[in-house]
């Protein structure tokens, strides 16, 4: 049990810290957009890289957010029936519906991985005038899928614990405790 808790804690911490670091990327995007506007408008010298770098940053920023948001219970759902369920029923229902979650993430991992490998097979560069390497950014899709899957598995384990012991082990409880 302690080993399980340690692993769950590690997954939580991983997604948590990664998200906190990534969250600063909004400042980077802001500065990039602003500097591009200034260069173009004031100096009449737009860069070939400004817009694309902003775009690539945005891609990494949003795709890697999946696991972090799951860890904090931020993926929105319809809670109309759900809130009426008991803790145990919730856990059971979550275990059942997680099939769709795992199918989606699984495909994102396998086919996102395949997309990235394909790109790495010729060290793909962007076709733009700037031409940065694209493969590291495509690699973020399977990476994001792994982070999300890890968090999903952690949630599944917690649901199983809740179902068998009747004690709420969900990360929502954890969030409440941590923010209290």
């Amino acid at each position, binding site marked *: 049990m302690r080993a399980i808790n340690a692993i769950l804690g590690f997954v939580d911490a991983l997604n948590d810290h990664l998200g906190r670091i990534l969250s600063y990327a909004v400042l980077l995007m802001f500065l990039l957009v602003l500097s591009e506007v200034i260069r173009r408008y004031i100096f009449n010298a737009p860069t070939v890289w400004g817009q694309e770098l902003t775009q690539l940053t945005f891609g990494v920023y949003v795709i890697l957010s999946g696991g972090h948001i799951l860890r904090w219970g931020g993926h929105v759902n319809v809670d109309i029936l759900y809130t009426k369920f008991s803790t145990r029923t919730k856990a059971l229902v979550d275990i059942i519906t997680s099939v769709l979650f795992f199918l989606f993430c699984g495909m994102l991992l396998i086919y996102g991985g395949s997309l990235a490998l394909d790109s790495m097979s010729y060290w793909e560069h962007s076709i733009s*005038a700037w031409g940065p390497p694209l493969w590291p950014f495509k690699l973020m899709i399977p990476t994001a899928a792994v982070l999300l899957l890890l968090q999903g598995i952690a949630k599944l384990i917690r649901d199983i614990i809740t179902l068998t012991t009747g004690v709420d082990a969900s990360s929502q409880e954890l969030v409440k405790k941590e923010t209290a």
Partner: protein
Amino acid sequence: QDVITWRCPAHFPAASSSFKDSVQFVSALIKERTNGRFIIEPYAAGSLIPGPEVFNAVKRGMVPIGMTSSAYDMARVPILNVVAGLPLNFAAEWEGVYFHQWMGFEQLVKDDMLKNHGLLFFSDRIYTTELSLKKPVRSMDDFKGLKLRSSGIMQKYLTSIGAAATMIPGGDIYAGLASGMLDGAHWGAVQGSSSMKFYEINKYHLKPALNVAATDIWVINKNAFDKLPADIQEILTRTLEEHFWRRTNQYQYLEELELAKVQKEHDVTVLTIPPAEFSKMQAAAIKIWDEVAALSPDCAKAVEMIKEFNRSMGRLP
């Protein structure tokens, strides 16, 4: 009788005239010629697969056939740099047709695509990329400081001759022109610019073309092709080969028609760069041609063909 249905994603928006005149037209013709035994089901840009992923989707067999832009896959298939059109490569459509069909360039690409990617290749048509502008441009010097929307190799070229070429997404171009952020943009030639509403703002259209190229291409997965009955294979191949000539010619006609229309409705003035200036601009493009030539032996061969053609026209020394 058995009906074979192929999904065919394209990179054209559903309403673009090319979706109708290239994809849906070929689809209807093939249906008729096979007596309904072979159906190619067209899907507009992004509805199944985003445009830049059509090539990959066909290559991995997710879909058997697709229509895409030759520019999307230049990084993976070097020869597509030439297909997509080197800057100032030719001065008119017929020159590009001659390059593809008489100088052997189309076959060069077909061999490359089949050998390296397991794909059958067909150029859809040859057409031009032309600038529509808010300010008059009559010489190479006029490009200095001109704020243009461009992309890829053309952006590199326009920057090299002194323009402030920027790559902003399609949806932002209109606003960019309207507000004065941009002095001009290229989106195909007249029909493309007109469909994007550029002439509501831009009152000048510049000729000759920035490039003449097979911007839109068909790719077919060879494994899927091999599973077709022999007579259907024959009909598919013949139809696409024939389509190239008919469509290229039709497109030129439609260009003239649209140009007359925008001249009348939007008071557009056609500007023509004089031959001497065109030669000067072509000379400035050679550095970029040579960069592409260095990418692969096939590219080198193709660039040499283009130079040879231009020498024969007396434009290059």
